[in-house]
């Protein structure tokens, strides 16, 4: 298995884990942050497969605009006594649906995967510094929001 496949597996696992974290966290503000991380990971999967335009659209239009507004809303209307908001009865239909879809997906004949293995190297060579700055900027923005909310004690 090549590096791109391993990276894709790791990113898929990370996206599901952060989505679960958004579901299970009591605080809505952190839930919004975890949701943003999930969407950025999904955007990162596009970047990994050398589909940069969609990465830019998701990371900067969707997460940058809508995600940031959601985080700001969650910070403004933050509950002082956060509580777990999960109705466990809904896990049952979700698990049944997942099992049915999982079975349908793997029930088909295996189709060839043509994700380019040179995607990472091409991207890293051309846009390494740019990507580094983008991620640093995103992390700094998130840290600034967390610091602001903690200082205000909302």
């Amino acid at each position, binding site marked *: 298995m090549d590096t791109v*496949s391993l990276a*894709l*597996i790791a990113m*898929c696992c990370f*996206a*599901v884990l952060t*989505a*679960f974290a*958004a*579901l299970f966290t009591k605080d*809505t503000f952190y*839930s*919004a942050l975890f*949701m943003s991380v*999930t*969407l950025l990971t*999904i*955007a990162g*999967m*596009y970047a990994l*497969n050398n*589909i940069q*335009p*969609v990465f830019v*659209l*998701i990371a900067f*239009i*969707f997460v940058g*605009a*809508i*995600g940031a*507004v*959601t985080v700001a*809303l*969650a910070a403004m*209307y933050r*509950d002082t006594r956060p509580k777990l*908001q*999960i*109705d466990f009865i*809904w*896990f049952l239909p*979700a698990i049944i*649906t*997942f099992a049915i*879809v*999982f079975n349908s*997906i*793997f029930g088909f004949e*295996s*189709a060839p*995967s*043509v*994700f380019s293995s040179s995607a990472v190297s091409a991207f890293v060579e051309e846009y390494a510094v740019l990507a580094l700055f983008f991620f640093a900027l995103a992390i700094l923005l998130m840290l600034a929001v967390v610091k602001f909310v903690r200082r205000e004690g909302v």
Partner: protein
Amino acid sequence: MMVYLVLVTSIAILLIGYVMAMSSKELVRLLISLELMFGAVFLALMPLFTVQNLITSAFGIAVLTIFTSGGELMILIAAMVTFSKKFHSFSTDDVTAGGEL
């Protein structure tokens, strides 16, 4: 194999968003769950980019999906802010059926 993995991940995130939407008691959480579901849709589009003949169409669908969902969520955010100003609450219990006030 990687295409299947992407699709299974997409379904998992979609169902997590679904569970979150069904059990949320705050409008902000409802918004977060919708964004997770849209994220799953974006991920489900990725296998289209593996078919050479479909790449241009896939990009068109992706652009359309991202901008449509973004606009839809902005309208929802505006509705939530209006709701909050009117009722001083973000609870889903205060939302009546059919959008009645």
